[in-house]
């Protein structure tokens, strides 16, 4: 079965994303279960978490190492692997950038958005805050004085501070009102129970009356029986009858039936009244249970509402709701969970106040990293805390600007624009004295080094003529540091070199065609790299260099001979070399010079050659002999004499 390539790509991409996510999770701190800004004491107390907000975390070193591995490894060939590697590289790049920033920032986009919005929001005026919390204190005081209704009314007043309260106080008032409504239902049940109790009492009285009449009838009946028949014993165990002591009709076995129908009817009515009484008592019990359920449900609902307030950070309302709870339900203490929430709220409020104070101090001393951390903690812990709400926008603006610079820094790292990154780091260092540039600078330097090394490798490969490898290394260097200033120069040099190489080859071919070996010799250093992998041209180059080498040796030899006055020999050496390199300017110039100094000998040799060329062998031989007479060591003459002598003697045969 074949799997479509698209599916493979998608699977690999998803796998990479999951792996990266898993690594990020692995590196995450389990702090979400703890209050974000609680003190040591609150940490020791297993208080319930105030909210589910996440604490900003730095990526762990393991994650960094893993992502570093993913980030800095070359993707395998093939479309699927390449795409997966690109996804991994992109994610890895972001992680490395965050790691390099080294400042704990909110990762959750929603929280971060809220925090940034808060940074840009104008502060709540101190007067308004003071009035609000004065009102809140008033509510507490009313509750303390058990003026529950007045306190409830004040909650509506608190809700008018919309900016601070956001209507939470009105909602609390509604909750209290709901409890009161529950109480009304309880009162109705009480009334019903009272009615039922009266009915029970009435039934009981009726039953008693009926029982009296039945008893009297029975006594009367017994008297008549005793008088009319033998004395019979009154039935035993009457008290144990299932009627609960009520008189019953005697058992039929061995006994006589009731004397009249009226007596039987009275017993049935008695039984009915008795059963009615029991039913009413059961209904009273049911009503009482319902009352208890309503009360418990009301307490539970209110507790849950307090928990909601706590989790949403409405810590002041938690304290206020706790007071309402005690007064509404007339209890001396909170439930255990609410107790912890109220205590934690008070503790957190104190903690947030302290954190905001520290924030102010750090901003004042340009310690923006710590200040940002403090403000985030305070915000996440209780963004409605008066200290947080009343924080001046000018101070928050500094944090916003610092955060913007960190964003810019992250983007520059992701984009690998290290040139601008260095200047940005300088700016950040000036504004935030506690910002540690060690890690980003280390990354910058490492990547720069990598890029430079790859450029070096590319250059080496280019020099070796391995264009494919050179291009790969150029690409890797560009990916590592796209803004590398050397990259452009080196790349241009490379491409220029390639262009020059092409031109060099064209020129070389032209010179070979013209047999201009002297120029090839002069430019051999330029030609050599271009001919590295060209065997045929290398052979041509070798021949050219060999010819020039011989010519140079002949020139040296001729110069030495000239120094010794042997002009004929010098001419002959040059003439021999010139035969191999007829168009060499240097040889020809030297040959012309020596020809003037050896005119007679040169003339003799030339005439011999000319005659030999015309097949005038005798005449040629005579000239060779004449040349030899002038220069007995002449190679031309001796060889010519030997050659022609043999030829003459053989030809004539």
């Amino acid at each position, binding site marked *: 079965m074949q799997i479509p390539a698209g599916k493979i790509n998608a699977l690999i991409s998803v796998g990479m994303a999951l792996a990266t996510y898993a690594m990020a999770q692995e590196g995450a701190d389990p702090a979400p279960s703890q209050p974000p800004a609680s003190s040591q004491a609150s940490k020791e107390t297993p208080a319930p978490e105030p909210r589910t907000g996440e604490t900003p975390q730095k990526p762990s070193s393991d994650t960094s190492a893993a992502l570093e591995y993913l980030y800095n490894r070359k993707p395998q060939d093939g479309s699927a692997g390449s795409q997966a590697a690109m996804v991994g590289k992109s994610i890895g790049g972001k992680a490395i950038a965050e790691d390099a920033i080294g400042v704990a920032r909110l990762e959750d986009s929603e929280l971060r958005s809220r925090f940034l919005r808060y940074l840009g929001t104008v502060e709540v005026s101190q007067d308004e805050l003071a009035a609000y919390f004065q009102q809140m204190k008033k509510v507490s005081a009313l509750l303390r004085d058990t003026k529950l209704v007045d306190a409830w009314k004040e909650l509506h007043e608190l809700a008018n501070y919309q900016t601070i309260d956001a209507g939470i106080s009105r909602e609390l008032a509604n909750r209290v009102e709901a409890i009161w409504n529950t109480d009304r239902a309880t009162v109705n049940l009480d009334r019903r129970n009272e009615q039922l109790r009266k009915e029970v009492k009435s039934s009981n009285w009726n039953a008693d009356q009926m029982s009296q009449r039945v008893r009297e009838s029975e006594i009367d009946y017994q008297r008549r029986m005793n008088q009319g028949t033998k004395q019979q014993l009154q039935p035993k165990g009457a008290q144990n009858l299932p009627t609960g002591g009520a008189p019953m009709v005697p058992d039929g076995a061995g006994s006589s039936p009731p004397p009249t129908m009226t007596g039987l009817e009275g017993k049935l009515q008695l039984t009915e009244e008795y059963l009615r009484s029991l039913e009413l008592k059961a209904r009273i019990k049911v009503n009482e249970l319902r009352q208890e359920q309503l009360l418990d449900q009301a307490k539970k609902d209110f507790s849950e509402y307090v928990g909601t307030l706590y989790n949403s950070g409405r810590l002041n309302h938690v304290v206020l709701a706790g007071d309402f709870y005690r007064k509404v339900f007339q209890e001396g203490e909170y439930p255990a969970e609410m107790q912890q929430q109220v205590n934690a709220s008070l503790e957190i409020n104190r903690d947030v106040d302290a954190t905001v104070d520290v924030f102010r101090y750090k901003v004042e001393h340009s310690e923006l990293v710590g200040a940002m951390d403090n403000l985030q903690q305070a915000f996440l812990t209780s963004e409605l805390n008066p200290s947080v709400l009343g924080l001046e926008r000018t101070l928050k603006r500094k944090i916003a600007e610092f955060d913007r610079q960190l964003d810019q820094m992250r983007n520059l790292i992701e984009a690998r624009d290290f040139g601008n990154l260095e200047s940005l780091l300088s700016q950040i260092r000036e504004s935030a004295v506690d910002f540690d540039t060690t890690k980003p600078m280390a990354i910058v330097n490492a990547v720069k080094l990598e890029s430079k090394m790859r450029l070096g490798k590319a250059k080496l490969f280019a020099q070796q003529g391995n264009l494919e490898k050179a291009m790969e290394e150029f690409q890797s260097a560009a990916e590592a540091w796209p803004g590398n200033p050397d990259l452009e120069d080196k790349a241009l040099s490379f491409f220029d070199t390639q262009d020059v190489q092409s031109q060099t080859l064209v020129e070389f071919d032209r010179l070979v065609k013209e047999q201009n070996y002297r120029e090839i010799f002069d430019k051999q250093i330029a030609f050599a790299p271009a001919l590295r992998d060209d065997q045929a041209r290398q052979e041509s180059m070798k021949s050219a260099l060999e010819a020039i080498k011989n010519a140079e040796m002949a020139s040296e030899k001729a110069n030495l001979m000239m120094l010794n006055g042997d002009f004929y020999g010098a001419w002959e050496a040059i003439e021999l070399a010139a035969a191999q390199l007829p168009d060499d300017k240097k040889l020809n110039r030297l040959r012309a010079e020596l020809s003037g100094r050896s005119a007679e000998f040169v003339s003799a040799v030339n005439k011999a050659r000319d*005659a030999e060329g015309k*097949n*005038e*062998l*005798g*005449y*040629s*031989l*005579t*000239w060779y*002999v*004449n040349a030899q*007479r002038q220069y007995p060591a002449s190679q031309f003459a001796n060889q010519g*004499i030997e050659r022609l*002598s*043999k030829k*003459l*003697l*053989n030809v*004539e*045969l």
Partner: protein
Amino acid sequence: MQDSTQIDQASNPVISPFSDSEPQAHRRKRKGRAGLFASLTVVLLLVLGVGGFFIFQTLNDPLRTLEPFPVGKYLEGYKPLAGSKFRANLRVENDLGWKEGLGRLMVFSLREDPRPIVVMIPPSLSEIYFTKGQNYQSELEVKEGGLIYANSCRKN
């Protein structure tokens, strides 16, 4: 003094080396004159014989009518000389080789011109043993291709 001697010889054609000495006996005078005549005669005959010989030789020399070989002209260009015969007094310079039935290539120089020429000695003259420095009188003929042939050769 030289002038006085010439004057004395003109007035006295024969002066005896003993003219300053005392005269001898008369018989001894006659015998001296006869010997003188005989010697003169012999000398005269010898002179005539030698002269005749040379004249005879000269008249009988086959190269007598040939032009001397013009080395200069030959070296300027052999074609004007091609087919012509010349006489030359050759001096052996070198031996370039021999081939049976073909002859021997020799290098000679001429008395008149030291520039060497190459001469093919035909097989008919193979009995001559050339050694360097020997002089020969030869009849030379320039043939096709400028090669000089020695038609005859005799040692001087």
